């Protein structure tokens, strides 16, 4: 019947239109993001940004992260694995993008721990104990505080240091840089200033490997 044909054709048209519009929109976004990070390399890392791995490595992964982000936590061992798989060739720079409520306080604990040379240990502890200090997507710094035992931290000094205005300034700066680079989700990865456009373990691995191949 003719009417039924019209209905079916319209439904198909809607689906096709949606898929076409989505792919056009995504391509445009990818282009914008690529040009943002390639033109604005100064936003990618700051002098104060925590760094892991050989300083003279020619491949640098920049990761914008939120300590309360489950996917960041899941990616952390994988990123370390990528560095181990390419010894002395890849290093990691972390940037803060505390999108969850109170995550900025967790970040200031990291920064204070950094003054005691316990940054990575504290970060790993935070990832390991996520369930203990995140409630309904809100970070509970006082609960994270209870998880910090055994790391050799001077807790009193930690408490004083984390109030520092310099730490708050760094977090603000990182969040501004994320905005400039159009990073709105965590984890946000860049490898040698190239954004990870299609998110996932494999695309990240491919991007790192292609940069290693191009630079060594």
């Amino acid at each position: 019947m003719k009417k039924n044909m019209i209905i079916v054709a319209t439904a198909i048209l809607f689906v096709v239109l949606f898929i076409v519009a989505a792919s056009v929109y995504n391509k445009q976004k990818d282009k914008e993001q690529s040009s943002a990070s390639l033109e604005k390399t100064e936003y990618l890392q700051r002098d104060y940004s925590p760094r892991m791995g050989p300083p003279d490595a020619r491949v640098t992964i920049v990761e914008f992260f939120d300590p309360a982000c489950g996917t960041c936590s899941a990616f952390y061992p994988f990123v370390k694995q990528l560095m181990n798989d390419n010894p002395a060739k890849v290093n990691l720079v972390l940037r803060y993008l505390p999108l969850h409520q109170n995550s900025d306080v967790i970040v200031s604990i990291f920064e204070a721990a950094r003054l005691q040379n316990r940054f990575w240990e504290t970060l790993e502890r935070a990832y390991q104990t996520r369930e203990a200090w995140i409630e309904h997507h809100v970070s509970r710094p006082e609960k994270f505080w209870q998880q910090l035992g055994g790391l050799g931290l001077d807790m009193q000094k930690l408490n004083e240091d984390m109030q520092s205005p310099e730490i708050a300034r760094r977090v603000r700066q990182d969040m501004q840089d994320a905005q400039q680079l159009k990073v709105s989700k965590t984890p946000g990865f860049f490898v040698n200033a190239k954004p990870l456009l299609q998110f996932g373990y494999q695309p990240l691995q491919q991007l790192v490997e292609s940069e290693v191949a191009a630079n060594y």
Partner: protein
Amino acid sequence: MTDSTTPDKTNTPSQQGWLLIFSCWLIAMAALFGSLFFSEVMGLKPCVLCWWQRVFIYPLAVLFLVGMLPQKHKEHHSVVRYTLPLAVIGLGFAVYHYLVYSGFIPESLQPCSEDLSCAEINLELMGFVTIPMLSIFAYSAIIVLLLIYRKRAHQ
């Protein structure tokens, strides 16, 4: 020249009625795919009020489709019965959202979660068309078309 004893097929009441429901379905489908485009492709998170409007428009895309299918009893106008209430309630949420958006209803009264404000304007097409405005347009147009359909059915 059309024969006056056999009316033009496109002008029969049932044909016009079908077109009215078809138009309603088009609007509901546009709202369905449009809202999914905003949230799933553009990444604009729907706030609580957006969700309530979605609750009442999504079933309409299905109900109008069912209403257009051939039926045994030709004078069967029950599609209005089941779709009009949904459209009216949805319009209520859309108007409320528009008032929150434009500031007539203070922020403290709005039922939004802390992280997503319903008053925050995150999209303006052509500089002035906002999402609640599109929603009001969609619901109002559906209601008007359904009322016309019902009036004709009663005649």
